């Protein structure tokens, strides 16, 4: 892990163009804290996979739209990523990012028993954005997302893992920490601060 001065340095060094977030059990709560206070003109698109039961309509977009200033929607296939917009993956479909920075969906097999899978989103995003990507992995009860976050790390992107000590279910953050050392291991409140800093960085 890096020291405070390194943090500032690494933030100043890079131009982040998108944020991807993955969460499972306990994710709703963590995400509420994580996203609070992001301004309407937040300059980045945010794409989120939260594991949800298949076969039901997702109410995620509705829930978060009421709480946040940024635009919130369920991801549609082939739609271009817009800044200041939060996209939720639909239950039952993997969500991927294409080279032309549009979203695409897939009904392929589940990954880590999950569809949408965090790994699938993260790996495709890493491939598109390289070092200009920020990946955040939050609380969860399985190992989905760990390999994806490592892919972001390997492509030079910024990686943040929720502090397992704070996570409602630490399995997911711990799985990532077992694979590699991310740039930051932080409580959600501090990740929120960091995202807001990113915004000022990009402004």
């Amino acid at each position: 892990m890096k020291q405070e001065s390194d943090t500032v340095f690494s933030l100043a060094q890079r131009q982040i163009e998108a944020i991807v977030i993955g969460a499972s059990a306990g994710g709703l709560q963590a995400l509420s804290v994580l996203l609070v206070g992001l301004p309407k003109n937040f300059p980045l698109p945010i794409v989120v996979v939260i594991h949800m039961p298949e076969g039901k309509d997702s109410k995620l977009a509705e829930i978060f739209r009421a709480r946040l200033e940024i635009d919130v929607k369920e991801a549609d296939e082939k739609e271009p990523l817009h800044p200041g917009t939060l996209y939720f993956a639909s239950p039952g479909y993997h969500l991927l990012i294409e080279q032309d920075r549009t979203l695409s969906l897939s009904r392929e097999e589940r990954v880590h028993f999950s569809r949408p899978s965090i790994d699938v989103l993260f790996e495709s995003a890493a491939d598109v954005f390289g070092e200009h990507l920020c990946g955040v992995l939050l609380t969860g009860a399985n190992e989905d997302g760990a390999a994806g976050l490592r892919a972001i790390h390997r492509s030079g992107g910024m990686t943040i893992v929720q502090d397992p000590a704070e996570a409602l279910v630490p399995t997911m953050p711990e799985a990532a920490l077992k694979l590699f050392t991310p740039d930051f291991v932080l409580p959600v409140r501090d990740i929120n601060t960091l995202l807001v800093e990113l915004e000022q960085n990009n402004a």
Partner: protein
Amino acid sequence: MCPDRTLDIELRLLIEGIYLKYSYDFRDYSGASLKRRVLHALSKFECETISELQARVLHDSQLFSELLQFLTIPVSEMFRDPTYYLAIREHVVPVLKTYPSLKIWIAGCSTGEEVYSMAILFKEEGLLDRTLIYATDINPQSLDRARRGVFPLERVRTYTQSYQQAGGKSSFSDYYTAAYDGALFDKALMTNVTFADHSLATDMVFSETQFISCRNVLIYFNKSLQNRAFGLFHESLCHRGFLGLGSKESLDFSAYAGHFEPVVKKERLFRRL
């Protein structure tokens, strides 16, 4: 640091090579998911690089058949999204009943789960005897499995639930015989079904139809290939014919948006204008 694009170059060459050699056209498929599937295939075929896989595929047609299983997505379920089938019963069937004979097209039928589901629905609505069902896919192995009509018994419980939610009028077990770990579906359901190799990317329209169901196929296509497929559907459907898509697929923003009207928007059921 710029991401290394060698992989993308190799992928494009592989896809181009497959098209030139085997006439399977994946050139306008969505890249991210295709790439994922090819990388998955690399480990299966023990190839270090896509270039190595390309060389082998071009010289070994048997290997290509195996690779095709990775390039296509044979993931399907019976009565998937029960509300879709319920909407067909309520909004499509009453109109279809006014025709003396019917032709319907299940495009991208994969291993046949949707075909059997539709045949059961049509039987219960009294339409099956006067309906010809075309079930098409580009994957011959999937079509073979569809023809066999044996599905894993372990999944039948889920299917039974979905069947009931889809407005099933009978007992689901009437339609299959359980043997070992498989459920063999009633061959009588398939009397009027024609399974055929057909590509939405390269083939033409083969018949006029009153109803087309094409679910979770177009999500793998880019915009231009989607438009080609919509063009085929538009050409095949009779005036006021029905088109059903997957729950996340849409005609909005396509070149054919103005040529169809929604019937049940949430279920992605449309009608040709």
